[in-house]
């Protein structure tokens, strides 16, 4: 049985999910770059 109305739930999950992954990874990238700068002096 098809659930076409699921799109209303899953599309926002796609946007939030990808945004969330990039947000967390972005924080890790920045923090790592700062760590490298501080510890490689």
């Amino acid at each position, binding site marked *: 049985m098809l659930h076409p109305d*699921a799109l209303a739930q899953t599309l926002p999950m796609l946007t939030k999910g990808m945004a969330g992954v990039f947000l967390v990874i972005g924080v890790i990238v920045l*923090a790592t770059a700062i760590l*490298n700068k501080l510890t490689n002096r």
Partner: protein
Amino acid sequence: MEILALFSNLTNITPQMVLMWAIGGLLIYLAIARKMEPSLLLPMGFGAILVNLPLSGAITQGDVEGALSVLFQAGMSNELFPLLLFIGIGAMIDFGPLLEKPWLLLFGAAAQFGIFLTLVLAGFFFDLKDAASIAVIGAADGPTAIFVANTLGSKYLGAIMVAAYSYMALVPIVQPPVIRLVTTKKERRIRMPYQKGNVSRLTRILFPILVTVAAGLVAPASASLVGFLMFGNLLRECGVLNALSETAQSTLTNLITIVLGLTVASQMTAEQFVRPDTLLILALGLVAFIGDTIGGVLFAKLINLFLPEGKKINPMIGAAGISAFPMSGRVVNQMGLKEDNQNFLLMYSISVNVSGQIASVIAGGLILTLMGV
């Protein structure tokens, strides 16, 4: 007549059971003859045969408990086994090259696109919990797929595991045509000379702590997944627990792998596996892997729009952001060498491949958070 009674169980054999024996045999063949993920496919294949013998004592029958069912309750339904396995995996990973160039982590993030794309597609055919569990096949990471499927109470654990591990082993077949489809020859020939950087020991020690805190704050459901992976890495990098690190990498990993494959097979009974849904799950799993590959490559191409000539990224490295380590990294390197035998992409592709390990676990945790767990 009494002798015939000894064989009465034969009358309980169903065509579906025979099919499962064939599937189990196929998994064993792939594991041994083709060397495809043997550590998981072999116990899964053997377990599939074991649990599909009529009235098999390996699984619970009525009031009589079976060993595999007990193991499942002990370590799978509470997600313990995949988490323990993650300690071993974390202890095996060297984040050094990735820490030298942390921007490579972004490609790991982009290559999780297939998970969320598959969530949207699977949502048409399955209820949301099952759709989310199927989508995490795209994490290309067995423990994450098990963890999410179990937490969400998906009834398709067996099919999800077969799909996840089979496609992980099939990465050398699945990824290259997809990469060629979305890249030009000129792009595939872009060279990326590698210059080794310097990463301090302090950075290597603080990195797993940082990742755990960052991921755990945003996606609390991922705290155990990410935390156990990073704990294993901290055991490796701290430099004062070499014995524990070695134990995690070998003994612990091997022990858990043995029980994990067999325990997953307890979900591969004919009633649970031989249904049209299984074929659909296998198809959606393939979509997830293809979506991951396209997501990573297209992200690299997007970045290239802002980079000058001579500084462009070879977009193939984006495809290595899928968490199938180290297969995907090697595939991308081989494709680069095929286009230009002086173009060594390995350090970049392996670093991106490692970043996919982190990103896939974060994505799995976010799926649980979005599902309200």
